[in-house]
């Protein structure tokens, strides 16, 4: 029964991800991206990783998507953008590279299918994850903290509104 649920969630994830990369409107794509991330959260939970599933919902489908939504609102993409996206997505541009990449992709799938075994079918709860995280993986926590600090400084710097003024001063 649970295996069937896993495959249903996988189908939902694949379908919604396909729709994300083919939508012309950024907001529609974001909604499908949320569905895709939630479907992956279901798969995490079914694989026995409830903590990862919770993080997927809270951080990916919550915080990261909210960032995207804010930027979509600030960019104010309108009907003009949708028309331009339509001209950019003409099939003759991606057909040739797509066929060649599909051949390589089929080879990779063959390599993956050649592996044996199943997942353990045992849940690894948050307590086990926490003990490993603050035990042997403590350095990873510190590295993640430094990474987030650097990203915060970078985002703050990039988000400031001074670049246009400096460019106009340099060009005149």
């Amino acid at each position, binding site marked *: 029964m649970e295996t069937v649920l896993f495959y249903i969630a996988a189908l939902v994830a694949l379908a919604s991800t396909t729709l994300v990369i083919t939508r012309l409107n950024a907001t529609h794509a974001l909604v499908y991206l949320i569905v895709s991330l939630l479907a992956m959260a279901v798969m995490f939970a079914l694989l026995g990783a409830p903590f990862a599933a919770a993080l997927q919902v809270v951080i990916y489908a919550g915080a990261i998507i909210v960032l995207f939504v804010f930027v979509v609102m600030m960019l104010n993409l309108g009907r003009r953008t949708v028309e331009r996206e339509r001209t950019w997505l003409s099939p003759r541009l991606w057909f040739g590279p797509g066929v060649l990449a599909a051949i390589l*992709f089929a080879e990779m799938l063959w390599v993956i299918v050649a592996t044996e075994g199943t997942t353990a079918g045992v849940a690894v709860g948050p307590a086990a994850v926490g003990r490993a995280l603050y035990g042997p993986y403590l350095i990873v926590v510190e590295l993640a903290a430094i990474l987030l600090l650097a990203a915060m400084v970078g985002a703050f710097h990039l988000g400031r509104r001074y670049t246009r003024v400096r460019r106009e001063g340099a060009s005149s």
Partner: protein
Amino acid sequence: MTATAVPLEHALVIAAVLFALGLTGVIVRRNALFMLMSLEIMMNAAAFAFVIAGARWAEPDGQIMYMLVLTLAAAEVAVGLGLVLQLERLHTTVDVDVTHDMAG
């Protein structure tokens, strides 16, 4: 709590297909916002592969690497969206092709 035992290759194939879909999005789309979304899909698929590997041996290490990828994705999207905003301010478009000269 029980969990389902899925054949390893099926789960890995799903992760690979999701990664390939994200890669397709990065290559095909020229809108910087869609490229960032596709990058998120790619990172999430890679993190999914970590979780699958963790579930294979019932060890917490896969979920810890998933959390590290999650942190990386959050950092990447913060900086990336800042870059998108600057691109829109400088060129009044989110088409990445306008940055071809890389000048200033």
